[in-house]
């Protein structure tokens, strides 16, 4: 790990969770693991923010959940991306891309 893990940029956690779930359904711990892996250890999510975000996404209809056995045959709640969630991910990704490009242009100017 090169740097100390940092908090996720505000307002992006929902989008990042949806992205991890776009690959396959996953349980809470799996989501944090994957976020850490994919960010190469830059982002670390604490349990509180993660589950608040998951609850919000579920109530918003972006994900649904079901209890399943893990590969270690432990019971865990798996979160599955819904159609609505996929659409939201697409639009948020596009919007994020636009913003990052804009910010980059400003910083490079």
């Amino acid at each position, binding site marked *: 790990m090169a740097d100390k893990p940092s908090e996720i940029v505000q307002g992006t956690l929902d989008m990042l969770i949806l992205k991890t779930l776009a690959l396959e359904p996953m349980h809470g711990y799996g989501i944090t693991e994957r976020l850490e892996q994919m960010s190469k250890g830059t982002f670390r999510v604490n349990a509180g923010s993660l589950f608040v975000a998951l609850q919000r996404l579920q109530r918003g209809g972006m994900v649904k959940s079901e209890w399943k056995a893990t590969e*270690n045959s432990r019971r865990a709640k798996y979160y599955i991306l819904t159609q609505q969630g996929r659409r939201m991910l697409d639009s948020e990704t596009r919007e994020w891309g636009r913003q990052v490009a804009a910010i980059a242009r400003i910083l490079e100017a």
Partner: protein
Amino acid sequence: MALLRNLVDGLRSLLRTERVSKELDEELDGFIEMAVEEKMKQGISRRDALRAVRLERGSLEVAKEAVWSARWECVVDTVWQDFRFALRMLRKSPGFAAAAILTLALGIGINTAIFSLLNALIKPLNVPEPDRLVRVFSGRFGTSYEMSYPNYVDLRGSAQSFSELAVYSFPQPMSLGGVTHSGAATSERVWGIVASGNYFETLGISAVLGRTFAPDEDRTPDSRPLVVISHRLWRERFNEDPHVIGLTVKLNGYPFEVIGVAPDRMLRGGLLLSNDLWVPMMMEGEAMPGQSFKLTNRNETFLNVIGRMRPDVSLAQVRAEAKTLADRMERDHPKENHQFGLSVLTEREGRTPFLPGLEQFGWILMAIVALVLFIACANVAGLVLVRALGRRRELGIRMSLGAGRWRLVRQLVTEGIILSTCGGLLGLGIAALAIRTILKFAPPLPLEISLDASLDHRVLMFTLGASLATGILFSTLPAFRSTKPDVTRMLKAGDAVVGESRTRMMGRDALVVGQIAVSLLLLIVGGLFIRSLGKAQRIDLGFDPTNRLLASADTFLAPYSDEQSRTFDARLLEEVRSLPGVIDVSSTAFVPLSGGYLGDGQVYIEGEFPVPDYERPKVFYDRVGASFFRTMGTPLLAGRDLTERDVNGSAQVTVVNQTFADTFWPAQNPVGKRLKLNSSDSPWIEVVGLVPTGKYLSLGEAPQRHLFLAGHSSGLVIHTAGDPHQYMQAIRAAVQRLDPNLAVASVETMNEHLGFAFYSPRMSAFLLGLFSVLGLSLAMLGLYGLLAFVVRQRTHEVGIRIALGAGSHDVLSVVMRQGVLLVALGMTLGLSAAYAASQVVAGFLYGISGRDLLTFGEACLLLAFVALLAMYMPARRATQIDPMVALRYE
């Protein structure tokens, strides 16, 4: 969709808290376990792994709390917690809760009662689209008169703004006969309305049984004898028989066919005279025998006009059209419609001629009871303040354990709202009782008044609003005050207050000052109305009401010829005169103070300077029988009483009152002068007597010119030797003996009759007196309670003073000095408020001004006395404090 899922999810977690929380626990536990396992793979011990995970991922408990408080149902849950806790706290002090609830229930109850009466006056009629209904009056310069039938026909013919325009008469007495199942002929007096054929259509009301009139059934005079009966008549007289439709009934002896039954409680809203039946306008000649000329005479104004505006027309447009039409109607009939005008009022504005005054009085009452509620609120606020001091330790502990100030305030306000809601519920019961009591004292009128004071949705909303508002009002200030973040002092001080803060005392003092001010205001207003009633009862009526009896038989409704009814009246007079105990008997066409008059006419004085008719003064007149003034106990100032010869003779004579004489023959003896009534072609009438000016239309009227014409009239006035009640039966029997088919209209004592005229001063004195006494008692209870509490708080200090040698006089003055100051301040404020308020109520008073010094003085003395008493009792107790006990008090 998302909202719905959110809602369902939230409800699920509320209703199955345990299951949802277990699920969350399991998920979080799983999360931690997986993280720990991952760490342990790197060869760390389980304990170290656990610690590391907690460090990296945050504590499990915090996560759980975060998830929980992100849900909306969390708010519901805390409110529910507050609610349960508040209930528990109130259960712990039942005395406090009961006192607060009862005080509030009384305040909210009378507010609800008065509001529902006011609401009944001003709420819209229960017909479709009541806001499109307007009333049209003929009259100009702010005066409003009923309309004549010919003018109505012209108006309906040319007005474009109305989809319907209808007229109807006031309820008129009619005799309904010939419908008993047993076959016996009876007749009873009912009240009927004569209405145009489109009356029901205009209102948008259809019959519950049968049908209402069709417009074409009201075209030709005397052609369609149809009648729609009221639901009440159908119930009481016809036993709700569905076969009543098509039945023939006799109205004033004429056969009428029943075609429909009007809905129950038809036309609720406002103060309405309820009637028993409706007949088409064109049947006026049968419904009111001998009155059919009213249909063709443009001067006979006897109709109420109600119209339904077309949906695309505004009130301003209707008024504009009415102005144009009025000018045209004046041009077409310059003689009858001289200075003609049409005023268009909304249905509510034009309901009854006396509604504006009643409504204003309703608002005054509303303000008065709101003040009583304010006193009740202040009382409860005082209780809450006292109680909050006792709860300082509890609140202090909760604050030091981390409870936020907001949370505590919310908790205390929740308690307040619970109290006031309970008070409101109990208040509804009190209101229902109060309304029933007030309505029981209905003004004595021959026909029923329908005032729909039911607790409808508006009243319930009012009560709910009043309850919430009072709850928040009396609990918010004490709540903020007692949760000042000053934990250490709160914990240390405990019950005994050491160095109480200045602001806290100011809150209490403000309560005392406010209560004193408001109760003085209430006392003065109540006192004004009570004194006004006293004055009203001493008003010179122009006659002596004691031991006088009134009786009338509706001969005009019977199929009698003029000659027959004269004979009947004369025989009845003789029958009554021969009854033992009857001192005098005479007759009058219209008893004074009936709320109406027989007639008014233009006067032509012999030898006067001629003026055009429309500038001629109008005078009220009555037709009375022989020895009328002796029978009524009216003294004659000049001339003589009327005799049989005056009544039956060919020459017309009259007695005038002082105001009449002063107007037309100032400083002259009117006896022997001559005048004409209504037209210069009518015969001369000679003045034979002069009587003092009495009251004729209402108690509050300015002196009126009045004529008493000698003539045939059928209302009997009887001067009896003793209690007039004991003669009633004999008089009824006499009427029955003369004609068993005749419906006796009424037999009542003069004092009962005057109940109508005295109704408003009596009722207002009763209500305002009651409310001011109620307000005063509440305020004094509050004052006593607060002072008793202050004395208890100062026990320690007083003990020291006594130990140092202070006498009981010193102690008294120390304790009372502050109180006296507050009372004086409150009274000053109350006096200024009363001075302002007296202008508003002055119009409702008889014989005194709104600034009656005596009333102001008496109210001040009474309040000062009672307030001093309320303070003296606790202060007296302070002087008896045993210093040893007091010093050990801590």
